């Protein structure tokens, strides 16, 4: 009987290949080829029309001394970290509130906080642009009529404000999502552990910090890594907020915007590919670094 079953799975194994084949065929064309071709182009010079010419390591030499590239990396990282820390903190507080207190309308609150995550980021960028841009914007009307501000404020001329606004928008779009994921992590914790802690006289706050948080570390690692990968590729919001320029004074020009502008506005496809490769490397380093850091903490505790 057992032998027979084994033979039947062996006979059927070619169906396994058959069923997974579509994935690999399409992935090779639309996933792998673009990555490899970008890597190939980073050693070439190409304007999109003429023949592709060899450039050796010229693009990378330029990249290493390109001030705008470094500026864009710093902008992207700064926008990410300024939004990610509050995002994680608010998610941890909210998930503690939702887990340990009986909240009326808990599902309604949670769903509403999650809603901005589903809205088209391009629309969100334009939306906040309209709300803040110019002397007669809705926010200036509000501030002046409330007496907070005597004269209208030129928001988009301030680098600190504009960069802060992008971080705020990213926080606004992602804190609900992060809360939902943290709560999903919490549901995997055995509730019996809480009862045991309560018996030992631990408060809710202590239980959450000392027991829940260490147990959901894999969830927190997952959130951090995916947030780095997404955050370092930030494009939609800063691009639509500032018509693709990243102004004032290039303060919110992200690396993705820079590579888009180099490729599709200046038609330096070779150099844009080198910028892509640089960004890819940075993302890998940051992910590996944060994974190491968080895992080491785990070993210590």
């Amino acid at each position: 009987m057992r032998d027979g079953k084994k033979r039947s799975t062996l006979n059927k194994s070619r169906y396994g290949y058959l069923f997974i084949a579509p994935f690999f065929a399409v992935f090779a064309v639309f996933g792998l080829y673009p990555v490899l071709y970008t890597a190939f182009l980073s050693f070439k010079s190409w304007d999109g029309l003429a023949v592709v010419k060899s450039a050796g390591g010229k693009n990378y030499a330029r990249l290493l001394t390109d001030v705008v590239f470094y500026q864009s990396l710093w902008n992207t990282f700064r926008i990410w970290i300024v939004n990610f820390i509050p995002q994680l903190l608010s998610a941890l507080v909210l998930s503690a509130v939702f887990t340990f207190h009986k909240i009326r309308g808990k599902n309604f609150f949670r769903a509403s906080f999650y809603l901005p995550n589903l809205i088209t980021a391009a629309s969100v960028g334009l939306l906040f642009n309209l709300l803040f841009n110019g002397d007669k914007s809705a926010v200036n009307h509000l501030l002046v009529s409330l007496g907070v501000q005597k004269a209208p404020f030129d928001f988009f001329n301030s680098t600190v404000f504009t960069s802060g606004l992008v971080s705020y928008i990213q926080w606004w779009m992602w804190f609900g999502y992060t809360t939902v994921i943290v709560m999903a992590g919490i549901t995997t914790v055995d509730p019996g552990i809480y009862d045991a802690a309560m018996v030992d006289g631990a408060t809710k706050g202590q239980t959450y910090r000392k027991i829940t948080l260490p147990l959901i570390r894999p969830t927190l690692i997952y959130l951090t890594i995916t947030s780095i990968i997404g955050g370092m590729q930030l494009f939609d919001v800063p691009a639509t907020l500032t018509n693709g320029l990243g102004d004032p004074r290039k303060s919110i020009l992200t690396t993705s915007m820079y590579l888009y502008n180099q490729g599709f506005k200046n038609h330096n496809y070779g150099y844009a590919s080198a910028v892509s490769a640089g960004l890819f490397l940075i993302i890998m380093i940051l992910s590996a670094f944060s994974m190491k850091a968080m895992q080491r903490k785990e070993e210590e505790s």
Partner: protein
Amino acid sequence: MTRIKSILSKIIIYGLLISLLFLTIVPFYMVMVNATHTSFNIVTRLNLLPGGALLDNYETMQTHVNIWRGFANSLLISLPYTVLTGYFGALVGFGFAKYSFKGKRILYSIVLASMMIPSQVSIIGFYQLNLRLHLLNTYYPFILPGIANASAVFFLRGIIAQSIPDSMIEAARIDGCSEFMIFNRVVFPCVIPGVVAICIFNFVSSWNNYIGPLIVMSDSDMYTMPVMISMIKGLYLTNYGAMYLAITISVVPTIIVFCLLSKYIVNGLTAGANK
């Protein structure tokens, strides 16, 4: 004493939740209200209640840009893409979950690794690919990748491995079903709830994709909603009412879908994170 403390903590908690709710909702409210006002009203005062200029704004918007064309383009991309992710996610997941073959582990780790590739670092190659295949200004570059959606494979493989017993497949074999029929008639119908959950996500992410269509679609008749919205500022210049209305039109369908399906969306997210 403890009663006062618990009332106080309730006030703080609900105060926090309601102010966050306010922050979440207010931008949408402002946009929708301003969509019903004239540009003059918008620049001269703060509007908190709806006005009467909705139809005028609509006409202005329509003379500048055909927003329903963008709507149709987005639908024509997102719907087929979503169907492909659901069907092929289950098919490939079935292949990985229920068959044993050489190299399975390596192949599956390729699927997982493909999720980690940052998509925007390959846009130059993606553009070049579509240029060579003559796919610029077509829907295909955004529909076909639905066949290779790694997160759908990952999610549905887990569900199939857990919820479809091998005996069920054996029974279908004895009844004379071919392997492909087993998938279509037995496995796929059983995992439809999971397929729906992953499809909602993929629909939203496809609908919101901005940079992809931005580089592939140069013909304005092919613009998707996000691309059209991002171009609007240049077209309307000072007609704020029309701009706010265009944003409203791009945002409202998502809000409606969300209100109808929020339970599935949040549950799907939770299930996905636990796997």
